[in-house]
């Protein structure tokens, strides 16, 4: 099953490599991983998208908790949460495609953030599946490059991950 693990980790050199190393050493899956400092610069918040059986997930969370630098951890998928991913996609925008691209971006509530004579860069935010759908809706030949941040998420309401 797909799980989103959110964790707070000491913002120290090598913290990311400890987490990434754990996943490779124990043959766990990482679909995406995002990390950045929080409002408290001594802490980083990491969001890991992974999948596995319940047993595997139990081990993943226990092993992550065991890392000395990990302060707190939550499996967001266990309860209501919101998740978002950001994508920048550069597309060819010439001739009749130029108008079509604008229209598609509007339909998906994307924003065109860079315009040249031949290209657009479209910014799109949403659930990962929405980003997938956008890519699927475009003519593949017109996509020049895509870059995605990976999922980040937060629990709903009173579910708060904080020290």
């Amino acid at each position: 099953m797909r799980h989103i693990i959110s964790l707070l980790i000491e913002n120290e050199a090598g913290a990311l490599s400890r987490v990434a190393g754990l996943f490779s050493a124990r043959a766990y899956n990482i679909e995406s991983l995002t990390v950045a400092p929080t409002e408290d610069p001594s802490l980083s918040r990491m969001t890991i998208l992974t999948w596995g059986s319940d047993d595997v997930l139990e081990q993943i969370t226990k092993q992550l908790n065991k890392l000395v630098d990990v302060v707190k951890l939550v499996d967001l998928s266990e309860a209501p949460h919101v998740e978002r991913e950001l994508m920048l996609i550069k597309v060819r925008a010439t001739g009749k495609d130029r108008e079509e691209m604008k229209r598609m971006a509007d339909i998906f509530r994307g924003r065109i953030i860079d315009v040249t004579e031949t290209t657009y860069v479209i910014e799109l935010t949403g659930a990962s599946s929405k980003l997938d759908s956008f890519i699927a809706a475009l003519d593949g030949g017109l996509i020049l490059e895509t870059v995605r941040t990976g999922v980040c998420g937060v629990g709903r309401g009173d579910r708060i991950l904080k020290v």
Partner: protein
Amino acid sequence: MISGAEIVIRCLQEEKIDCVFGYPGGSVLHIYDALFKQGDIKHILVRHEQAAVHAADAYSRSSQRVGVALVTSGPGVTNAITGIATAYMDSSPMVVLCGQVPTNYIGQDAFQECDTVGVTRPCVKHNFLVKDVKDLAVTIKKAFHIATTGRPGPVVVDIPKDVTAQMIEFDYPKSIQMRSYNPVVKGHLGQIKRAVQVLQEAKRPIIYTGGGVILSNAAEKLTRLARLLGFPVTNTLMGLGGYPASDRQFVGMLGMHGTFEANNAMHYADVILAVGARFDDRVIGSPEHFASEKRRVIHIDIDPSSISKRVKVDVPIVGNVADVLDEMLKLLDGGFKADPELADWWTQIETWRARKSLTYRQDQRIMPQFVIEKLYEVTGGDAFITSDVGQHQMFAAQYYKFDKPRRWINSGGLGTMGVGLPFAMGTLFANPGATVACVTGEGSIQMCIQEMSTCKQFALPVKIINLNNGMLGMVRQWQEMFYSKRYSHTYVASLPDFVKLAEAYGHVGMRIEKPEDVEPALRKAFTEHKDDLVFMDFIIDPTANVFPMVAAGKGLTEMILAEEL
């Protein structure tokens, strides 16, 4: 103001460290200079960094103190890796101080530079790179704190050379608080009550204990609990000595080379009380086969990730083994009334025991089991036994009956050949004057044989019991049984003359070739040569195999017994 190097020494003094195992080099020159100028800490110069770490590891294992190793950057660290990984797999508390190239050289591919934090990361409990001298003392404090609390393990502190030269006021924190690290000690009382309830209902129980009992110094509490319950007890390889092996309730070691009664009792038990053990592959064999019996499992472990990792647990108790056992004993203070069917279970166990699965035939050639039995007799069962890895290790575990904890020092998790001699060194430094024997083979001993030189320098009277079959015995055994006797590269051709070799290092050498000479030679070594290192080269029957045996991937009850071949 004192230098970073002096701070390192002062921190060790604060931690009451009386000896450090190490090897000097460019990046640790300042630290070695500071060592030279003090008198509290003894430095043990080894001949290879791997041995320094193994010795520090055994110093911890054989006492309740922390072993410390000191190595230089680059090759010093890479040589130390095997030792660090060995300690990590067996949860041995240890601090390894490593020199590093100066901070402004890091990343420049400098001479003797190596990414210490990177290469050690998968095999340490935690590691640090100290980039500023003002962080040095607090980092070393954290290292000792992390190494010794929770599930213990090795911690590496990487110290660049310039940091050891900088001057600062010394301020050693009395205690340390880390928001990210707060290991659980006390077990959950509700869970402990549930566990006691399950124990009361048990008809075919077994107490299965591992290294956690030794590490938390809980052997005495475990023994009291086991006697109170009247249940059979089995130990893992790492748990030997956690319960007196000469006691009637002890059914022997379990696992791949466990006794017939221990493996059967474990498999057919309706309640397993697992204490500081982790159901690893060498213990339960095939997890699918093991899961074929219905049973309830109570698991006490300080590491939550060890619980329900390989075997589903019904009553998990996260906590320090000694504290949890204390709570259990308190709850059972009013006495314990076992299920009447327990008597039938014991009858069954005695039937299994009557198979006498630990047997061998001693005729013309010396059998390795015979040597261990004689070693047990001659040392009165009270020696520290270190071992290397292979057949000799299993023979020692099976035939030397450990009644006390911390007397059996071996590499169970990583299975590191070469640990035996440096383990014996560390054991002697932690227990001066103790009787220490290193049970080894002609394969393993050659992996750290250079340490005979260290033993000479520090007058360490290790008794090396070399069970010499001229073969890499355990691999040969597998080749015999599972590879149609294709003995691929397991014959160790051109072995040295170990007697002459021991003499060349300045020690006493003996070669023993006849069964009738075994006991007199051992007596001579342990009395007449009490204060000497004696290398005893026992020329043993090369066909001897370790039985019982559960082949890899087989179930715990699918044992091959000696008489079946």
